[in-house]
């Protein structure tokens, strides 16, 4: 029975990590439903972007207040993980504060964790106030009702609880060290939790041990829970921001991809010596004719699907969107949320049908993203510029427009007029190409 806590701990750890791996696999499978995007160029530039944007948070501080608060929570998350390492080793081996032999360094580390924990608590409270009391515009948009709103608050509550548990555990430990309790090595500096001792004064040693042990267990179980909560929440960005910034678009934002399938057809049309029937065997053999643009998540690239999972719904894109600012339905954040929701739906469909997608009569277009939203975009790239983790909502909008125009001929009639003019007389307006130089002769 002596090893019961160790066994329970290892069981919890294996279950937590195992479940997490299962979710990661599901996530990878869903992303792979997208079209392959081969990205092997500019490796060093991509690493640099990842270090600068994801690790260095350079785009977060564009807005100084949330940027600073976010850096606190982010640093807290990363640095306090060193403490989690100690907790795991202690849990498996049944030791207590195994790193305490580091002496002064250990004191310094624990003190740092405590200060960070307090700062995280403050930041999280401010975040909660901004979301729920100040109700900043970008947090109360139509797409932020229901689960997205609950999710956002849950994340804050979980972070708050984890930090309070951490400090409680330390405070009780500190008090126990004072009382010379067995196994409670005198180690660590407790600049924050030492003030908790007023609560613990006069408590019996066994009560203190109960508090310390409970906080210790709840803290690590909470972390394992949070790890597995990620897949179901908008909080995946803490992991996916890294690959996402690596795969983010390089080069000028104004450069949109040229569709290769179209290039081939155009070349065929423009080349008088080309044999128009040269490729017809493909059709005869029943090979799939490529679909232009995107009407569902499977038509998007894996990068675009990764974008969708990475989105943490901060709404900076929507905040900068000229269409959204002037009351149109388009919200770049909603484009990303819809893409993820539809992808999850397709994933669940696969789960339920042994890995084979059963047509559910739904798609991303119309069932999630309306045409009104797509046509409201000015392609100004403000959303792309605003995203702190290199998400590109504009590319999805453009791909869906391509589907509407090239597969469905469903452009707004004014745009059809414009395109007809370009086709017939080389300008978006009905002017004769032969009059193109008239300006030079006019007064």
């Amino acid at each position: 029975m002596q090893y019961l806590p160790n066994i329970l701990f290892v069981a919890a750890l294996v279950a937590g990590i195992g479940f997490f791996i299962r979710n990661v696999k599901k996530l990878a499978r869903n992303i792979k439903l997208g079209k392959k995007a081969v990205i092997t160029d500019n490796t060093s530039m991509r690493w640099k972007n990842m270090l600068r944007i994801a690790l260095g948070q350079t785009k977060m501080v564009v807005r100084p207040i949330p940027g600073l608060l976010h850096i606190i929570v982010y640093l807290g998350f990363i640095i306090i993980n060193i403490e989690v390492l100690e907790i795991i080793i202690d849990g498996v081996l049944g030791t207590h504060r195994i790193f305490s032999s580091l002496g002064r360094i250990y004191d310094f580390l624990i003190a740092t964790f405590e200060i960070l924990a307090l700062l995280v608590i403050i930041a999280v409270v401010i975040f909660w106030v901004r979301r729920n009391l100040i109700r900043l515009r970008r947090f109360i948009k139509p797409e932020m009702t229901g689960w997205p709103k609950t999710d956002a608050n849950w994340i804050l509550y979980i972070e708050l609880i984890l930090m309070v548990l951490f400090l409680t555990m330390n405070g009780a430990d500190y008090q126990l060290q004072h009382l010379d309790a067995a196994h409670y090595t005198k180690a660590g500096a407790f600049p924050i939790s030492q003030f908790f001792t007023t609560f613990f004064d006069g408590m019996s040693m066994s009560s203190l041990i109960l508090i310390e042990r409970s906080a210790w267990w709840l803290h690590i179980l909470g972390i394992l829970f949070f790890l597995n909560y990620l897949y179901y929440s908008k909080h995946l960005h803490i992991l996916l921001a890294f690959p996402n910034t690596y795969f983010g678009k390089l080069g000028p934002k104004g450069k949109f991809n040229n569709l290769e399938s179209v290039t081939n057809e155009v070349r065929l049309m423009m080349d008088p010596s080309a044999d128009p029937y040269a490729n017809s065997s493909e059709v005869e053999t029943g090979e799939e004719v490529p679909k232009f643009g995107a009407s569902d998540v499977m038509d998007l690239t894996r990068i675009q699907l990764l974008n969708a999972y990475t989105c943490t719904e901060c709404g900076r894109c929507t905040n900068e969107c000229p269409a959204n600012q002037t009351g149109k339905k388009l919200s770049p954040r909603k484009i990303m949320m819809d893409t993820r929701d539809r992808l999850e739906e397709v994933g669940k469909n696969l789960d339920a049908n042994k890995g084979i997608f059963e047509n559910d009569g739904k798609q991303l277009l119309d069932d999630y993203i309306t045409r009104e939203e797509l046509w409201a975009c000015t392609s100004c790239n403000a959303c792309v510029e605003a995203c702190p983790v290199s998400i590109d909502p504009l590319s999805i909008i453009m791909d869906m427009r391509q589907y509407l125009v090239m597969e469905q001929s469903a452009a707004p009639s004014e745009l059809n007029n414009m395109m007809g003019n370009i086709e017939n007389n080389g300008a978006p307006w009905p002017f004769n190409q032969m009059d193109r130089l008239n300006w030079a002769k006019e007064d």
Partner: protein
Amino acid sequence: MESELKVPTMAELSATGQQPEVLFWVGCAGSFDDRAKRITKAFVKILNRAQVSFAVLGTEESCTGDPAKRAGNEFLFQMQAVSNIEVLNAYEIKKVVTACPHCFNTLKNEYPELGGNYQVMHHTQFLDELIKNGKITLEGGKFKGKRITYHDPCYLGRANNVYQAPRDLIAKLDAELVEMKNCKKKGLCCGAGGAQMFKEPEKGDKDVNIERTEQALETKPDIIAAACPFCNTMMTDGVKNKEKEGAIRVMDVAELIANSEDP
């Protein structure tokens, strides 16, 4: 205009075996829109004054395909691109300048993969270079001390990171450059991009150009400077909507430079 503009075409030049240093890509707006034609002429006036060796395609020019591409018609875009590239390559064009950021972006970024490789400059970059090389000199002139706010065209600014050249030009006018609350990387769109120019906006509280004009008016400018024919139209409409057209003018940076020494 004090003297007639000299506008050689590529066809004329190549008939006499000449090759200009730079091709001026006029664009559809610059060719056909009454307001934008004035920008085209202002730019040519400067090119003439600086004795730049240039030519236009004239009737051989066709839409770059930008609005078709942004509207989702990749097919029409590539048809336009391929036939334009055929013309440009036949004339062995190396360098292109254009006063339209949409043409600029498309020619510079989207044509290379389709076989069109040129050094492409926006006219503000080209003018900035002319000044830096001493080809044109500007000493204050009639815009001295005027409050000018500059509206960043999305396809010049965010899309291609050209923020400084137009600002340097305005600085040369000894004018007071006043920035809007959203400028440079955070510049707000005029509402015309992504083929919006050619359709009615979707339902909303207000039009994008009104929002942007309000931001411009907050700076209490004498002049709103633009560097895109479409932005110019949108901002001009916005100023009219606010009934400020008597007090505030919307001008292209090229017009500011061309007119600065006019009496």
